[in-house]
């Protein structure tokens, strides 16, 4: 008989109360660095305030971005509202050498990678498809085609294996790869194939699924009739469910999975149970498909309020700190606003740039025709200029 657990790992409850159980003991131990009733309460408080700050700033960013969209400065924005703990918790468990493949809502993870959050905006302003250099923070650009990047993450991890960067025991070198995706994504064949490839290769990859209860208007129950974490068992890898609104538990579960990956223990699937408190994107209207009761009930499990309550319970937060954080948030908001408003459309030549890494005749000809047309001097034969390229001779036949 094989035993599996559906139990949700939770370390701090919705009202900020510590959660202590036999089942979560190993995670409590792992997460001691953030636990206010742990061995080093002061240092823990300092660290936990860091996570609290992360979440508060990320939320400010989110609110700011949403209102920029309302003002017509962005074409679209997918808010992460409500998912801050899952993202900041898992993101803070990463090491700088780890590599992340986000979906399109991982602004909180971007923050933990050290990205300037304004850099997330070009794609939503319609001025770039990507928007940042993935190599700068080992944070890949957003992937919009649901689930397809799970395979990229797996392949990348297979590359890491070949590079000998797994299980060396050198904490500064061993590396893990993380793919973030949603509950809806678990239905895609690509995600299942990724689980399969990762398992048989024992690849150092963590599949971090934020089950935010909805795939646009479709509830998770229409994607799976059992908890999503079980999916992993069927492919032969651990599947762990964590309270994704508990930043400490999210950190602990991610930390364990990442350590397993880096040390050669193979892939893990994490289901972070959370809630998309806002709309799917700024184009969406959730009142069409879910009740305000549901929204309110999840509102009471707000991941940020929870940490605040926990900190306050242990006298580790005060008004002065709150005011300072607020000021920092205002500054971030201001920075994002200014930067976004200054983002110009690229020149039209961008239409033709980077289509290929090496020169390509079709692109060159069309670009020439386009430029001539723009200049009011259309050419009828843009390929003519290319006529000097030598034809290959036939070789031996």
């Amino acid at each position, binding site marked *: 008989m094989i035993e599996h657990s559906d139990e949700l790992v939770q370390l701090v409850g919705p009202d900020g109360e510590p959660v202590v159980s036999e089942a979560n003991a190993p995670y409590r131990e792992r997460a001691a660095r953030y636990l206010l009733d742990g061995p080093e309460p002061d240092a823990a408080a300092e660290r936990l305030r860091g996570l609290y700050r992360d979440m508060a700033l990320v939320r400010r960013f989110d609110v700011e971005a949403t209102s920029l969209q309302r003002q017509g400065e962005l*074409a*679209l924005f997918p808010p992460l509202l409500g998912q801050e703990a899952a993202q900041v918790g898992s993101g803070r468990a990463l090491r700088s050498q780890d590599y992340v493949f986000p979906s399109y809502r991982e602004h909180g993870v971007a923050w933990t990678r050290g990205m300037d959050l304004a850099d997330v905006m070009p*794609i*939503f*302003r*319609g*001025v*770039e*498809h990507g928007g940042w250099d993935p190599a700068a923070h080992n944070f890949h650009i957003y992937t*919009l*085609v*649901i689930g397809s990047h799970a395979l990229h993450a797996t392949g990348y991890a297979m590359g890491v294996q070949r590079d000998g960067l797994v299980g060396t025991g050198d904490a500064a070198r061993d590396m893990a790869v993380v793919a973030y995706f949603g509950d*809806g*994504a678990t*239905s*895609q*064949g*690509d995600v299942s194939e990724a689980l399969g490839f990762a398992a048989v290769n024992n690849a150092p990859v963590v599949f971090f699924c934020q089950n935010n209860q909805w*795939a*646009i*208007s*479709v509830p998770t129950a*229409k*994607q799976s009739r059992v908890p999503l974490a079980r999916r992993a068992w069927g492919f032969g890898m651990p599947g762990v469910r964590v309270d994704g609104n508990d930043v400490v538990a999210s950190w602990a579960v991610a930390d364990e999975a990442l350590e397993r990956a880096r040390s050669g223990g193979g892939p893990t699937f994490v289901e972070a149970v959370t809630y998309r408190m806002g709309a799917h994107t700024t*184009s969406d209207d959730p009142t*069409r*498909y879910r009740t305000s009761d549901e929204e309110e009930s999840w509102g009471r499990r707000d991941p940020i309020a929870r940490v605040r309550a926990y900190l306050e319970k242990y006298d580790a937060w005060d008004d002065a700190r709150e005011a300072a954080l607020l000021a920092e948030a205002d500054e971030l908001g201001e920075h994002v606003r200014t930067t976004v408003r200054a983002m110009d*459309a*690229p020149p*039209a030549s*961008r*239409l*033709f740039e980077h*289509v290929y890494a090496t020169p*390509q005749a*079709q*692109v060159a000809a*069309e*670009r020439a025709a*386009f430029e001539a*047309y723009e200049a009011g001097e*259309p050419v*009828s034969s843009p390929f003519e200029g290319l006529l000097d390229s030598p034809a290959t001779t036939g070789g031996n036949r």
Partner: protein
Amino acid sequence: MTATAVRPAGPAPSDLPHGVAGMPFAKAINAGLRAALASDDKVLLMGEDIGALGGVFRVTEGLQAEFGEDRVVDTPLAESGIVGTAIGLAMRGYRPVVEIQFDGFIFPAYDQITTQLAKIHFRTAGRIELPVVIRVPFGGGIGAIEHHSESPEALFAHTAGLRVVSPSSPQDAYTMIQEAVASPDPVLFLEPKGRYWEKGDVDLDAPVGVGAAARTLDHAAVVRPGTDVTVVAYGPTVHTALAAAKTAADEDGTSIEVVDLRSVSPVDVPTVVASVKKTGRCVVVHEAPTFHGVGAEIAARVTEECFYALEAPVLRVGGYHAPYPVAKLEHDYLPSVDRVLDAVDRVLAH
């Protein structure tokens, strides 16, 4: 299964009079789907978010409430799964109408469409018909992020066994979706999403071809007669072609005949050829990249059939050999009235 009756349009939606002035394109499809659902209880709609939400463009709005969750089905998020199960349902006698949320998300279903849906009729020597419609909001111009503005028709029109059509007006949208549902062959139904909010008069009693008569689905339409140049367009660019024709007529009296192809597989060659034989000049306009695009087939075929009538080579106006650009550049990418007129000038200059 090749009945040739032309039946009246399905029962018109009860809350609409039978002739509707100024009906938006998306609502016309909605009305057509509702008529199809009402007239045949084997018709099902399937897709992501088409139920309570009514689809991200609200094309299926109200239909789940009216016909129930078993007939208007919110599926799991998996395009191959959607098309693959639709095939199975069609084998069992159902007529699934599948919605792909956006053009750029059809490709996970490509194998099921190309290798299964298109070919099972041939493979079974006609023993199995698969009357599956795949609705895809396609094309650009709505300021969207990547994958939400592509025009993949050429990637499907090459495959035998599929019909690939695109309506350009609310009336055609209303009629053609019903004909597509009635077709015993699978139909890729491309909806020009940039036109969803445009209005037109719709006769809800317009006849709908069923069975072999659904071949009206194959027919091109001369939507503006002219004598100097034929402009061939379909879906979103018909509007552009008509605007160009009007401008040309107003500005220098050039008389452009606009042919709305309506179907890119098959192509109504006789209608296009008849027009080009008259005008002697032809420009094809589509949003998709021209390289290996639908315009190439039109140009090649027209040249073959009208070689001695042609005064100039057939020119193509369309997207570039590049991925769909960022929203802020899409107006440089999409065929504009000016670019159509530039091509018209060039064929006239020959």
